[in-house]
């Protein structure tokens, strides 16, 4: 094991970078607040416009020229409505295009925080640029922190917090880059990232140092990296679940003819069904990774402490979190639990995860206590 000295200069640079990243995230957050404010008009109008576009495209394809192979697929959706999906293939080119959209199947997705306002959209784009800039600074901070001690930069709670906040913002930017309709996630993601970083800087900060021998293992790279990715994803799924619960209640009140609050905010969010699916997908994708994290931890424990499972508080709470997410995944496949009840389970599971990270280190002493916390 190579034990380099601490490069304090790099460690300081890392600290400056994290403060810069936080400043830029704060600016991005304000830009997003402006975006939501400016975009307060015209969500509904856009929706009907989108629907008519869809209707047109279906009509267009119905009149498609000869020599074009076209199939219109009818898809029954959960609300009892249908969706159509049209696929055409040019006979000579062999290219296929897919048009899909919603017909009369339940509420449509909102257009996003900017609504139809161009000004809002501009501010929103600035917010995205700022978020990307913040992400780069953030990544540079984590990297220099690691380089200052020549090891994986997640050896204590401060470093781990920075790493999983980075994963979360990174996941958001990747989703944006793949042209997913997730601009609405920007505000909650920057707020949560700022909260995590704030707690990390103010409460959990420890100077960059070499690790205790127990952490000298390549399993640090495997086990803790996986845990940071899980942390970021669980946070994202949590934000989506909360959005789902709000939007779902909103849609139900609309359907029941009750008064609703913050209507034009809600209108710009994706449909509850979409949010529900998104949070399920994030959780379902990350669940095997979380399982892997625990297993990797167990293997490491076997190497370091002689037993792969000792019911150390961290192990116990990882297990509790795992069981809670497993219950959520099962609930989602069970009649009478799907929807809101499953979402509450997801929130509960996330609370377990949160306690596992912060609570266990702060309130309970176990073998996962390093660098004071």
């Amino acid at each position, binding site marked *: 094991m190579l034990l380099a000295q601490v490069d304090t200069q790099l460690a300081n640079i890392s600290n400056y970078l994290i403060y810069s990243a936080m400043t830029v995230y704060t600016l991005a957050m304000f830009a997003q607040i402006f975006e939501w404010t400016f975009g307060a008009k015209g969500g509904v109008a856009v929706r009907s416009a989108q629907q008519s576009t869809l209707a047109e495209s279906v009509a267009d394809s119905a009149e498609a020229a000869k020599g074009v192979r076209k199939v219109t697929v009818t898809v029954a959706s959960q609300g009892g409505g249908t969706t159509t999906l049209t696929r055409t293939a040019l006979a000579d080119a062999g290219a296929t295009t897919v048009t899909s959209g919603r017909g009369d199947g339940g509420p449509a997705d909102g257009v996003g925080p900017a609504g139809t306002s161009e000004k809002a959209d501009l501010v929103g784009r600035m917010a995205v640029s700022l978020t990307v800039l913040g992400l780069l600074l953030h990544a540079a901070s984590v990297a220099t922190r690691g380089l200052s001690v020549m090891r994986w930069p997640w050896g204590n709670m401060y470093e781990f917090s920075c790493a999983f906040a980075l994963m979360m913002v990174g996941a958001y930017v990747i989703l944006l880059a793949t042209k997913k309709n997730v601009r609405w996630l920007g505000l909650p993601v920057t707020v949560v990232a700022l909260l995590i970083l704030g707690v990390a800087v103010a409460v959990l900060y420890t100077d960059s140092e070499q690790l205790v021998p127990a952490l000298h293992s390549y399993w640090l790279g495997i086990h803790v990296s996986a845990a940071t990715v899980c942390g970021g994803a669980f946070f994202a799924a949590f934000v989506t679940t909360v959005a789902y619960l709000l939007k779902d209640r909103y849609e139900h009140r609309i359907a029941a003819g009750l008064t609703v609050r913050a209507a034009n905010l809600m209108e710009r969010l994706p449909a509850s069904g979409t949010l529900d699916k998104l949070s399920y997908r994030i959780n379902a994708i990350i669940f095997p990774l979380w399982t892997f994290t625990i297993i990797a931890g167990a293997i490491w424990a076997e190497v370091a402490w*002689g037993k792969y499972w000792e*019911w150390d508080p961290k192990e116990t709470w990882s297990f509790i979190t795992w069981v809670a997410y497993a219950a959520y995944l099962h609930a989602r496949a069970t009649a009478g639990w799907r929807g809101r009840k499953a979402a509450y389970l997801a929130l509960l599971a996330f609370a377990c995860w949160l306690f596992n990270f912060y609570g266990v280190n702060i309130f309970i002493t176990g073998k996962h206590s390093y660098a004071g916390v």
Partner: protein
Amino acid sequence: MSDTKTSPQPADAAEDPDVERLSTAPEENDSVPPGMGAFGWLRWFWRQLTSMRVALLLLFLLSLAAIPGSLVPQNTNAFKVAEWKNAHKGLAPIYEKLQLFDVYSSVWFSAIYILLFVSLAGCILPRTWQFVGVLRAQPPAAPRNLARMPVYAAWHTDAAPEKVNAAAHRLLRKRGFRAAADPGSVAAEKGYLREVGNLLFHFALFALLAGFAWASLFSGSGTKIVLEGQGYSNTTTQLDDFTGSAFYGVDDLDAFGFKLDGFTADYQTEGPTAGTAKEFVANVRYWDGADTGKQKNARIEVNHPLEVGGSKVFLTAHGFAPVVTVRNARNEVVYRGPTVFLPRDSNVTSPGVIKVNDYGTGPDGQKTQMAFQGFFLPTAAADFTHTGPISVFPAAADPRLVLSVYVGDLRTDSGLPQNVYELDNKAMTQLKVNDAPATAILKVGEGWELPDGYGTVTFDGYQQWANFTVSHRPGNTVALIGAVAAVLGLIGSLFVQRRRIWVRAVAAPDGRTLVEVAGLGRSESARTAEELAAIAVELQDDAPAADEPPADGPPGPDVPADDAPPADNAPAAADSPAAAVPTAPETKE
């Protein structure tokens, strides 16, 4: 655990009950059969136990039951338990009754997970059986009315029906579907890995449980403090303590041994975390079996145990052993050697006791025994009048030995087992100078003339010791295989989609051929629709679409043309099974 079947079975689907069930999950029937006897109750109980609802409840209970174990100290750490019991004298007996110091082996915790595993078995075994049946059978034939399937497309062509069906069969095969050509239609299914993954995951949980059980029945571990230069052979007489299990006792210890050639500890010397350990290394020579002839060198570090003879040797602690020479009143050497002192804090402030059993005759002519109680401080604080003797750094930069002395009866002959690290001073008196307890702070090489003519003690030096845990734990491989299988299974059951596709080409009354393509998958994903569209487009190579007749929409073979809803909303009606069965149920337990 079984899925709760979500769909009210529509009358229409009754004719082909299997078609719409993509899951092999058993269906549930919660109703208590009327007038049932004991067997009926048993059956009902079994149904309840293997139902998803109860499984969910058990999962929830399991996580709830695991919480106290993280808050109350557990018996695996006896020291903390004792401390806690001392602090909460009133609660301790109640907690003891509730087995709160042994949560994970308690009756109630065991009951929950055993019930959970029984529930799991009750679901997984029939499901496996059913799945084998599914694999042996052909994919279920196309339902009568394909337009009612969740995903549907249709067109007219001039190609002959048999040719279209044959082309569809080829195409689906090429795309990796299990396809069966029925008269007039093709049935195909793909994504069996989902159920394979699902079953694999749940069987893997059993493997994990088996690994756990094996480990807890056949494992044992012991600890041993070894001084630098000392050897150790793995027998019960040499171990400081040993915890066995039902089938692994002291006679089962693996035969091997090792000699500790040296121990080095390296610490941070500056910065706010000065004193934090950087590296602990124990250099050993070890031998497998009883033959000490063939010795091999090895380094034991914190994350690098030594594997030898079915056991692993872990480095778990280290400390110092001051070397002293004690001379009695007649200047005879009555004690010489290192004595292990146990560290109390991270700076290795080490309290300890040196017992001189064979002191001989005291200055008063009486036979007596002697004991020193004190501290070894690797780097003593400059002044500890207020703090008591403490060390300020874990490495031996400025070592001191702080001692006070007792004479009297050590009571080692009382027959009761004695802790070598504690002094039983009930029958001893502390030597005093001017009515104050006599103490000395010694540097290496210094001696202390004991009060009242009891002789001398010299601090000759110190040695390092390392504490090793020797652990024999079988079943790790089983647990590891189980864990890997669980992750693979999860990936399969969460990421693979199981879906069915049917193609039916029949001669329509107008002489052309009606091609219908329908799919059934999880409605969660648009991928089934995408796939169906892709298949339909590809199928048009062999069955090019002809111009649509004026009455837009495909007339089904058994639906009068004027009655047929337009393709866009054919399955929209509430009575349609497509709407009622939106879920080809996701199954992910």
